[in-house]
């Protein structure tokens, strides 16, 4: 048995025999340990009447056999698989069938008598034991030859599958089941069929009459527009940033990143203040050109503009790594063969960007489908699935089944987009970063492409700038749109610091939520990056059964609208075995698994450019998978690391729809606070708070980039500064 196997066994024993098995208040420990509520698994099993915990010891004992007895490798592996598998299965099954009030299923109660044994949510001891059993199982499987006997790879697959199963599939299944139930909780297929085929979803009346089309078509149309738009704009920015000598690149990059760090509702609000019927720009247009004021911003145009503003940065973050990674030698080869710059760009560079383009489009498409803040503020009578779903859950009708059905439609679209992406990329190879000396010079853009980029990117940058000017001004005037007296009152209400008797005292009303948000975001970001990139590595570098299904699974929680995820998390995690509502943990997990797809997508896009021969060289030289990942792949993945850290940190600070059900008094989030202010009509405070968040996020992005550093690709001259938005802004 390997040293790490022994370590896991030891951890498993600690988890079982020493740590408290269930979640319990630890304060009056003396009378409840080791056999009472706060007791360890062993203590409760022997002295606390929790007999069902005893067989788990058998699992651990079986896994201990290879340590005690001298066995050959195959036999030892068999013992590990048996022990780990048995213990883990038992632990999971017990967790689900024994609840707070006895048996959780009717037939068990009928069989063994009600109410049966009771237990609360599983705690540290159970979690550690489960993890150790899983790792022992993976160790055993690796020793039996899975994944070329690579224990790291098997363990990583085991861990990621278990986490995705627990935090994505389990809650999502809980809520999707309700699609097939009527309001009384009975299964009913006819009702499901009626709900799915409803005219309000699929109606095509807008083609033939003045009536509105179904909400599904609206959503699809908008998502395609946003996907194409964000990809085009993101590409333009990425090309300017890497391939031109544009002078104000720094400023441009700050502008492209700003929207991603803007809390929800704020962009929508700013657009209304600019283009609404009484907006500032509308007033100018009316006075200067006599263009009548109208409400054109409410509906498809407004939502489209707001989403383009919000999601272009994501496309940019994905594309910049890919554009950089394209090998100059291929382009040089093309030019040596006398291709013009334009031909080279069209036939060499652009096709090599396909993984980036496809992933950027997919993210824009899915983000647009799941976005809820912008359609809420700007949608007018243009309805999309996400808002429909939100109000099916929280609106006056309170129809969870309908929300689940609409979520299924949304999922269907995402699934389709995912497969289209797959088909488009096909089986071609996009590798450009290889171990061979790749010290070419990046080709400047062909002139017409450069002009096209400038023509799209610069007006857009100016527009973004204007929107943010409005936001900034909004925080410092009494009432945006009505009363422009300058004031600091909003900042004081939110962030007042008073000097009390015991030193400084944070008396502003926003401090609590602000600090909680920072904590949660700081915890979620590294976890997201680690799990996401690990998943990307497994999916693009290892082959195992069910890989495609696994890949789609990671997209699930991203594709399902936040509201549905929020409700599904309550349904899944408010009762044992994993009873974590009201803690910071559920918020962190929600963020990690909602934002992981971005880490996965940018990881896959970047990895698909890195030649496998690099890994193989490392393996041939005797490094194990883990060392290869750490020394070779991770340094080349730096743009993806930055993208995933930045994105997950920022989203943890700005996401709203999922967390609205998960916040508790102790862990209230900044966004729910802001939404509350917007609801109360206190735009000033909402905008002021958003300004503070934006500054904090800019600092965080700067720090992430300083910490992670740049990727060095051994090009002749550094073609363009990589990934240091704020550094340039500051300089």
């Amino acid at each position, binding site marked *: 048995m390997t040293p790490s196997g022994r370590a896991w066994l030891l951890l498993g024993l600690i988890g079982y025999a020493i740590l408290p098995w269930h979640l319990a208040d630890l304060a009056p420990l003396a009378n409840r340990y080791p056999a009472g509520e706060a007791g360890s698994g062993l203590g409760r099993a022997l002295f606390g009447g929790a007999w069902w915990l005893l067989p788990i010891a058998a699992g651990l004992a079986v896994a201990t056999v290879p340590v005690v007895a001298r066995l050959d490798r195959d036999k030892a592996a068999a013992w590990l698989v048996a022990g780990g598998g048995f213990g883990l299965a038992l632990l999971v099954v017990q967790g689900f069938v024994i609840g707070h009030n006895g048996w959780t299923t009717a037939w068990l109660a009928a069989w063994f008598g009600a109410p049966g044994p009771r237990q609360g949510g599983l705690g540290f001891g159970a979690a550690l034991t489960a993890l150790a059993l899983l790792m022992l199982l993976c160790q055993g499987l690796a020793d039996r030859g899975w994944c070329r006997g690579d224990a790291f790879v098997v363990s990583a697959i085991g861990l990621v599958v278990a986490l995705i199963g627990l935090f994505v599939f389990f809650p999502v299944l809980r809520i999707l089941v309700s699609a097939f139930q009527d309001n009384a909780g009975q299964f009913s297929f006819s009702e499901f069929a009626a709900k799915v085929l409803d005219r309000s979803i699929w109606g095509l009346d807008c083609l033939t009459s003045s*009536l509105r089309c179904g909400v599904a078509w609206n959503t699809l149309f908008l998502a395609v527009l946003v996907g194409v738009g964000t990809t085009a704009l993101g590409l333009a920015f990425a090309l300017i940033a890497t391939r031109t000598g544009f002078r104000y690149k720094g400023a441009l990059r700050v502008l492209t990143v700003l929207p991603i760090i803007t809390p929800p509702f704020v962009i929508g609000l700013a657009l209304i203040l600019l283009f609404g*019927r009484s907006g500032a720009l509308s007033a100018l247009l009316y006075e200067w050109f006599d263009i009548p004021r109208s409400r054109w911003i409410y509906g498809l145009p407004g939502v489209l503009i707001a989403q383009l503003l919000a999601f272009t940065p994501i496309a940019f973050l994905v594309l910049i790594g890919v554009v950089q990674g394209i090998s100059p030698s291929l382009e040089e080869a093309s030019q040596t063969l006398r291709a013009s710059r334009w031909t080279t760009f069209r036939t060499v560079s652009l096709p090599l960007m396909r993984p980036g383009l496809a992933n950027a489009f997919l993210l824009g498409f899915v983000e647009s489908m799941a976005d809820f803040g912008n359609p809420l503020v700007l949608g007018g009578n243009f309805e999309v699935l996400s808002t429909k779903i939100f109000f099916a859950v929280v609106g*006056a009708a309170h129809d969870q089944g309908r929300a689940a059905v609409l979520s299924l439609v949304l999922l269907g679209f995402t699934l389709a987009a995912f497969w289209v992406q797959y088909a488009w990329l096909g089986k071609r190879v996009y590798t450009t970063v290889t171990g061979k000396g790749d010290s070419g010079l990046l080709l400047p853009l062909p002139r017409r492409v450069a002009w096209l980029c400038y023509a799209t990117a610069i007006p857009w940058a100016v527009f973004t700038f204007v929107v943010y000017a409005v936001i900034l001004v909004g925080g410092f005037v009494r009432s945006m749109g009505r009363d422009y007296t300058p004031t600091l009152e909003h900042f004081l209400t939110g962030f007042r610091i008073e000097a009390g008797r015991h030193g400084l005292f944070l008396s502003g009303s926003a401090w609590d939520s602000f600090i909680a948000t920072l904590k949660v975001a700081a915890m979620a970001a590294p976890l997201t990056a680690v799990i996401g990139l690990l998943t990307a590595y497994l999916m693009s570098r290892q082959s195992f059964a069910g890989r495609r299904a696994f890949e789609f699974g990671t997209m699930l929680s991203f594709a399902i609208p936040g509201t549905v995820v929020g409700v599904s998390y309550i349904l899944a995690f408010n009762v044992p075995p994993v009873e974590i509502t009201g803690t910071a943990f559920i918020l962190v997990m929600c963020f990690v698994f909602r934002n992981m797809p971005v880490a996965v997508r940018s990881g896959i896009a970047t990895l698909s450019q890195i030649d496998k021969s690099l890994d193989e060289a490392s393996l041939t030289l005797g490094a194990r998978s883990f060392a290869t990942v750490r020394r070779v792949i991770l340094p080349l993945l730096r743009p993806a690391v930055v993208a995933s850290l930045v994105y997950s940190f920022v989203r943890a600070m700005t996401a709203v729809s999922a967390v*609205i059900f998960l916040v508790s008094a102790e862990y209230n989030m900044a966004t729910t*606070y802001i939404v509350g202010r917007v609801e*109360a009509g206190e735009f000033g405070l909402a905008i002021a708070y958003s300004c503070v968040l934006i500054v904090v996020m800019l600092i965080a992005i700067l720090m992430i980039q300083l910490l992670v550093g740049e990727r060095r690709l051994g090009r002749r001259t550094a073609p363009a500064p990589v990934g240091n938005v704020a550094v340039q802004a500051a300089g």
Partner: protein
Amino acid sequence: MKRLVVAAAMAVVLVSPGRAQETLTVYCSILEEQCRVGVAAFEKATGIKVSMVRKSTGETYAQLRAEANNPRADVWWGGPGDPHLQAAEEGLLAEYKSPKLAELHDWAVKHAEQSGWRTAGIYLGALGLGYNTKVLASRNIPEPKCWADLLDPRFKDEVQIADPNSSGTAYVMLASIVQLMGEDQGFAYLKALHKNVNQYTKSGAAPVKATALGETAVGIAFMHDMVTMILDGAPVKTVAPCEGTGYETGSVSIVKGAKNMEAARRFYDWTLSAEAQTLIGSGLKINWVPSNKAAATSPHAPKLSDIKLIAYDAAKYGSSAERTRLLKKWDAEVKALPK
């Protein structure tokens, strides 16, 4: 491997152990400021620690339903009466006859009785019209006084109201119109009004803000929300329609299966007291009518004597069956109409 151990350790640190059972958990659906001020005053008066989360009414109701198997909250404080009644109907709320009921106005006691003593009224807010005086003046439109005035073709695309499917406020309007004019005539009115409606907003409070900003000339919402904008300096006036109007009864309830029943009852009693209602009502310039007879009403609040309130049948129109039927009918007959 080391990394996995670190991740595991992080996960262990993350789960804060246990929940102290001594603190009272309150889901609060009135304005954040009211929630905070109220909770602080209650803590000071009783020494009971309160942990409060502010969420909108719909969100709270959805959360209570999701948590039904293992309730987290003790008290649900604030928000229109309809969802409270619906929660009572579904068995999510605990029965409690507060001694404070004797101090309340009749409408609040009646509300409690309708719910089977599972909720009680803490304030009354009348539905009304709000209009932007600047916009009306610039277009030479007379100020509306009645529901019927809104059908004037000059108001084309100038009236804003929320979608009753998503907003409790708009559902109150739908139910009020039906009760005021009868179902057939009521729907005929709503169909006629449809031509003048520029947008069915998602949130019930959105028309208030749109009116204040001049994005719409007229908004239909609760009058006390309009008054808040007026006090903030917006060029808005609000009026109770001459034909009569409906209202919401802001409610407070104890969650069934509350873990701190004793403290929950003390909180419940406290929210019905005159001092509490004065503090979070007129004390914070909130212009609704408190349910406790002894509580002070804000001087800016619309006078109940000037408003013709209909006898709002909360039992009938708050029930799920009637609500579902009316919403379906509204979807099919009003919202689906071409403009």
